[in-house]
């Protein structure tokens, strides 16, 4: 029931995913029983997204579906559900400023405004040069004691001030 409908033509994974991605995905697949390979879908999507500088194209998701023998729609569901996956093109550096309650009390609004002005984009948008993507962070990132905070490409930065933010962001390639 969970296999790919035979009418749906999917790309061969190796034509879309890099050898390195495939290797990593297979490593994840090996951790699950044979009939439950789809458990590796979250890891596989992260790997695919990483390969593509931060976002998942339909083609990549189809390749993951083919690799894990899942109906493509089931992969789209997962990718569109989790906020850590982007399903449209975004800038290559993901900047997520926490705006949840503790950070908000500690002045995250100022930080957001500063960054928005700095790049002339709003939350959810990317810079034209494809360098910065200002992600809308919906959830507390669990670093409340260091608020206001942000996550830049998987790295946490706490006790932010506009100057500190400039320093961090300017150092990105």
């Amino acid at each position, binding site marked *: 029931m969970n296999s790919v*409908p*035979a*009418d749906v033509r999917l790309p061969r994974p190796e034509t879309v995913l890099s050898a390195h991605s495939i290797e990593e995905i297979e490593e994840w697949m090996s951790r699950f029983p044979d009939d439950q390979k789809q458990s590796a879908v979250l890891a596989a999507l992260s790997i695919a997204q990483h390969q593509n500088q931060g976002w998942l194209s*339909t083609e990549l998701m189809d390749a993951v579906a083919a690799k894990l023998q899942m109906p493509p729609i089931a992969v789209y569901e997962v990718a569109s559900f989790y906020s850590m996956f982007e399903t449209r093109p975004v800038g290559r550096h993901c900047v997520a400023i926490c705006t949840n309650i503790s950070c908000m009390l500690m002045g995250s609004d100022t930080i957001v405004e500063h960054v928005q002005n700095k790049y002339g984009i709003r939350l959810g948008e990317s810079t034209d040069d494809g360098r910065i993507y200002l992600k809308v962070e919906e959830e507390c990132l669990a670093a409340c004691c260091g608020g206001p905070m942000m996550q830049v490409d998987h790295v946490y930065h706490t006790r932010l001030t506009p100057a500190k933010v400039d320093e961090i962001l300017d150092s990105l390639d």
Partner: protein
Amino acid sequence: MSDDTIQITVDGTPLTAKRGQMLIEVTDAAGIDVPRFCYHKKLSVAANCRMCLVEVEKAPKPLPACATPVMPDMVVRTASKLAREAQKGTMEFLLINHPLDCPICDQGGECELQDVAMGYGSSASQYTEGKRVVFDKYIGPLIATEMTRCIHCTRCVRFGEEIAGIRELGATGRGENVRIGTYIAKSVVSEVSGNVIDICPVGALTARPSRYTARAWELSQQPAVSPHDCVGSNVFVHMDGSTVNRVIPRENESINEVWIADRDRFSYQGLKSSDRLQVPLVRIDGKLQPADWSTALSMAADKLQDRDLGVLVAPSVTLEELYLSQKLGRALGSNNIDHRLGQSDFSAQDSAPPMPWLGMQLNDLESLDAALLIGSNIRKDQPIAALRLRKSALKGGAISFINPRHFPLHFEAAELIASRHDRMVSELYCVARAAGADLSAMGDIPGTEGDERHQRVAQSLKAGERAAVLLGNLAVQHPRYAQLHYLANALARVTGATLGMLPERGNTAGAWLAGALPHRAPGGKAAPAGEAGLTAAQMIASPLKSYLLVGAELEFDAANPAQAMDALAAAGSVVAISSYLCDSLSRHADVILPAATFTETFGTYVNATGHWQSSRGMTNPPGDARPAWKIFRVLAEQLQLEGFAYDSPEAITRELQALCRDVQLGNLTEFSTAPAYSEPREEAMLRAGETPIYATDPIVRRAPALQKSLDGAQAFASMAGAELHKLSLAEGDSVSVKQNGAEVRLPVKLNDDIPEGCVWIPAGLPETASLGELFGVIEVSRA
């Protein structure tokens, strides 16, 4: 009272329930109304809409009736203050994002949301904020979407996963942004996709072909039987005045449950095709011209007075028409009568049972431990039967196939033995031999030891308590059908499996009973006058003086269309009783008598289980077209034949019923002689094909929405990658294919489901109508 039975009280009424049942099943059975959206008796419980909340004594809060198992002595109140408040609250939430567009919504008047809102909602909303909007994606020509109306009950998603076996719709996004759809714009491919229209409780999924044409309350409904396959699905025809507006399923648990195939649902569009015949046509000075009935009838009678007459009748017409066709032919002294237009090997026809049938009831297909389908694309040929078979596979039944290619399935098959069609006999031979069948009569054939696959299939059939060997459409059309039939028979005997046949078309089973055969009279008796007539293939191979065609479009129906066209061209006269003016008739017919068709006349269909089902005429045939039984009556009068003066079509049914009283259904048979085994062919390239799902009979061939769907557009030359490579072709190229002098150009499609040495070119399509045999030699070259 068994242990399984418990007592509960609902709204003060004591009810008996079975342990494990959900509360809503019990209240439904008792006729107690509990509102619901996500619950559907044929789908798994999702319990996500919360509309069915009821009060259960001792439970601290209302519980969803669809997901609450009954407990002994449970006391339930479905309409108490607590229950009503909960239901009202849910209703209010559901309506927050639902647009108030009922006046322009096709579902209006038959909308579950509308009905339940009337019963359980408030008249005004407290919600003043903006509502969400969803932009639609095109999902094909059959289903129109308006996803802003969706309430996320996920019935459609569960239908795809659980019933159709193809997960195409899904819930993407999260929270307020959840939307149901295909995510990417793509046509859905399921052949039963239209059922989501019925199960969608709102107007999110509606029927595209009938959209914006009528209001539900303006339509009248009549029960009918779908004429398109041997399931005989029960339907309701909805009429807007005197035209058919749409077709929906009519529940019949033993036949189609609550589902129908898209072919059953959308074929009605073909009734209004522009090539419907409205007046009789006669050929004068080489040109077809309109004529009045009396001229046409006397001309027809004139042309038919010849013993060298062949009657070719389509297996999709009604039982009464099949019966009258053979009765007329025989009254004129000819036994050359056949409905097996697509068949090419008739050598074992004398060993055939009185009627090919499933060998079991349709619901038995759900609980098979093992089955071997031979030459069957059951998913497209008998979609509703395939849904049942799928249930066996899901329960662990070993369902295997021997086919001339792989077909996309909606379940996991145990073994898929796909080989070029000329090797199918030896594949089946291997299985029969592995099962221990005595095949000495056929000869001991070298190289047919088989491998583990054959062993496993044989083993599964032997081990299965409920096992079946089923012969499908492609087996019957196979050039070595006699051998396949013989081997299937031997295999069933030795394994104890049921031998079943999937009659090819809507009334194939009926045609056998009606005696629309050269060697059998009605009721399965031997042909009268002791002498068998010519088979369809013989009638076509050497042209007869005259032909009577009933509902047959030989360029699409004949096993060898090119040869059939030559035969018609060479014939002295061709008389047709038909609803449509197809190309072969406009070129070759001398007289065409316009007949009523589905919904326009009374007619009986015999399904795969031998069940006779009739539907009545409910609309008027166009113009001067008449029910065929009346045409036969006056034609017989002109010919001065006795026994055709029926006063109603039911009288014909009764006459045939009396003749069929002694028919014993049974497929297992004794072969007087074993058909000789024939070696696989030497040619490097062979054609194979099928009649695709939307090319099987005149009505569906003319249904535009079905034709536009993915299954409709099938005019390709499909080959495996290796074969394309050999011919230096790529997908999208065009090739020229040649068969006995006829040449056709077709686009190439890459399809690794096709065995090497084989090009898959379907029949039944205008693009391939000038070609020869479906399973035969062919030349392929770059165009």
